[in-house]
């Protein structure tokens, strides 16, 4: 187990829901920390009676939504202004991705909540594209509830064996990142081809 993870697990046991909120919030904003492993652990701790399952779920969903909203509003209010100020033009692939998100906001928001690595980028792109805040909030809530609930329940189900399955969860993340990238590239390519004809 990595030293960062052991530090975070101790932090979680010492400060319980505050620590859970802080870790999930930071991961949702964009800090690359293993939040999914911590959620899995929280589920396992809930199965042993140290955490309450429903309070944990509420805290995790809330932390994720607050983090996602910060990304969304930062991109919406300051995103283009900052890019103009530092004279950086948005790369064309990001522009295409932004168009994709603007066209299919509901699916993009909902499904990317299952992929921790892509989640903050989608929230930023939603802010850039000016997706309606209510659409963002509703699908962000549903996506986070489904994905976090799934991981938390997995931890609850695995109980004391949760540590043996952390690798599998990282693998699932890689698979989902791969599938999402392939799907986005496929749709963009298909659209490009379709528009030409």
């Amino acid at each position, binding site marked *: *187990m990595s030293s960062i993870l*052991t530090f975070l697990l101790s932090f979680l*046991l010492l400060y319980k829901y505050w620590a859970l909120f802080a870790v999930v919030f930071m991961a949702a904003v964009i800090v690359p920390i293993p939040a999914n492993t911590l959620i899995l652990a929280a589920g396992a701790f809930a*199965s*042993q009676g140290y955490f309450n399952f429903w309070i944990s779920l509420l805290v995790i969903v809330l932390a994720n939504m607050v983090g996602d909203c910060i990304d969304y509003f930062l991109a919406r209010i300051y995103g283009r202004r900052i890019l103009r100020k530092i004279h950086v033009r948005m790369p064309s692939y990001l522009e295409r991705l932004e168009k994709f998100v603007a066209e299919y906001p509901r699916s993009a928001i909902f499904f990317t909540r299952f992929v921790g690595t892509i989640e903050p980028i989608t929230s930023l792109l939603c802010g850039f594209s000016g997706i309606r805040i209510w659409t963002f909030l509703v699908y962000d809530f549903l996506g986070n509830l489904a994905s976090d609930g799934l991981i938390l329940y997995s931890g609850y189900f695995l*109980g004391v*064996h949760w540590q043996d399955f952390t690798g599998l969860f990282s693998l699932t993340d*890689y*698979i989902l990142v*791969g599938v999402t990238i392939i799907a986005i590239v496929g749709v963009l390519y298909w659209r490009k081809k379709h528009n030409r004809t």
Partner: protein
Amino acid sequence: MPNPQKTHTLMKAALGAVIIAIIILCVLLVQQYRYINRLDYISHRQSLFRSLHGSGPLTSANASSTQAWMTFDYINRAFTLPSQYLQVTLSINDSRYPRMTIAQYVKASGRSQNEVLKAVQDAIRAYASAKQ
């Protein structure tokens, strides 16, 4: 009009990328399967599923799963030990008890981590056998 030659090349490249991605995923999945297999979970599936869905406190059989990142408070709760039991058994004088990790105690006491972990595990087993 799209260039059919170019479209064909792009399609072939995309198909190649998908095949490579599938091969990599298969290798990773096989690695994971072998890892889980080594843990004897798949060969002892019945015992796994009997012990899975492990809601409720831990038993003395799980005592070896205690680790340095765990707090005394968590260990007390998870193994349903009386709150002062580990403090008395291990003669812990630190005021932070029980809201301190084993690693923190190891650092403060100057004892070795393995020694403290073994003492905690033995204390859990002793409590369970005394209870029976």
